[in-house]
């Protein structure tokens, strides 16, 4: 039963390294969403349903979308 937790922690660390070392900005932002999703699953394994719900909604939903809106503004100003 703990094998699943160890694999998820390993996947989260690989995702964090990918978010810091990639060159393309869109790939970094999607890796941040992946880290939030795996952290929400790990918090469910630690028997904390309130915190898991909050991290899933705010981390994987609102944070990724405000990053992508910022990228939209920057590319928009780039083309003009």
């Amino acid at each position, binding site marked *: 039963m703990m094998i699943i937790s160890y694999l998820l922690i390993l996947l989260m660390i690989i995702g964090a390294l990918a978010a810091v070392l990639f060159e393309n900005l869109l790939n970094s932002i999607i890796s941040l969403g992946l880290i939030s999703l795996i952290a929400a699953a790990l918090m469910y394994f630690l028997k904390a*349903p*309130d915190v898991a*719900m*909050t991290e899933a*909604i*705010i981390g994987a*939903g*609102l944070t990724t*979308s*405000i990053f992508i*809106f*910022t990228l*939209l*503004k920057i590319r928009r100003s780039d083309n003009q």
Partner: protein
Amino acid sequence: MVLILGFILFQAFAGGSENTLSIPQFGEANLENRVSEHYINKSVNSETESITFNQTLNPESGSANYVTSIIANYRALDTLGEVTVLFIAAAGLAFVLGGNQKNYAFAEDASFIVRTGVKILFPLMFLLGIYIIVHGHLTPGGGFQGGAVIATAILLKFLAYKDYKLNHTGLSLLESFAGISFLIIGLIGLLTNGSFLTNFLGNGTLGTLFSAGIIPIIYILIGIKVGAELSGIISNLINA
């Protein structure tokens, strides 16, 4: 520098009993030594007694969800500070980005499938957000989660139409009303019982919907405030 900080952190968190300045082993925390034991037995100000679901009448804190009873009853002053920080962040973002608002953010509307799907999904998500806010003292959930779900429902509307606008005056009025009501409830507690934000209504049976004093009222106000603030943040970012 990162390696030195990592070494210090690992030494600080090394478990075991020979290191007397550190925390106990993972999974073996002894709840008798911590203050959480009083929160679980609901005996901060009174004696310990047994508490059962659907049978205890008038316990000290009244809500079946322990995390809710900590946030909205025992440590409600920290929640007031957190609401202030959210307000400052939303106001700062409106000051920086609120100058020249464009009329539309995307070039055209989304396709027909997206528009029809949003028409079906938007009332359902709004209803789910209100359900999560109102049942905060019985199931996992509460004001913060419900407010974020309402903000996500409004984000869905922004993605479907190219010139969807929110009424900023109405949003700021709603948010101010919720914040001022929170303070007025705290002041009523100060006038009737002697300390800020005490529970001045009755507590009822543990586990029914109309129970737990002022905890559902505080959570509904927090849900309205967080939902309005996050929607305002998204509206300012899209139309900047």
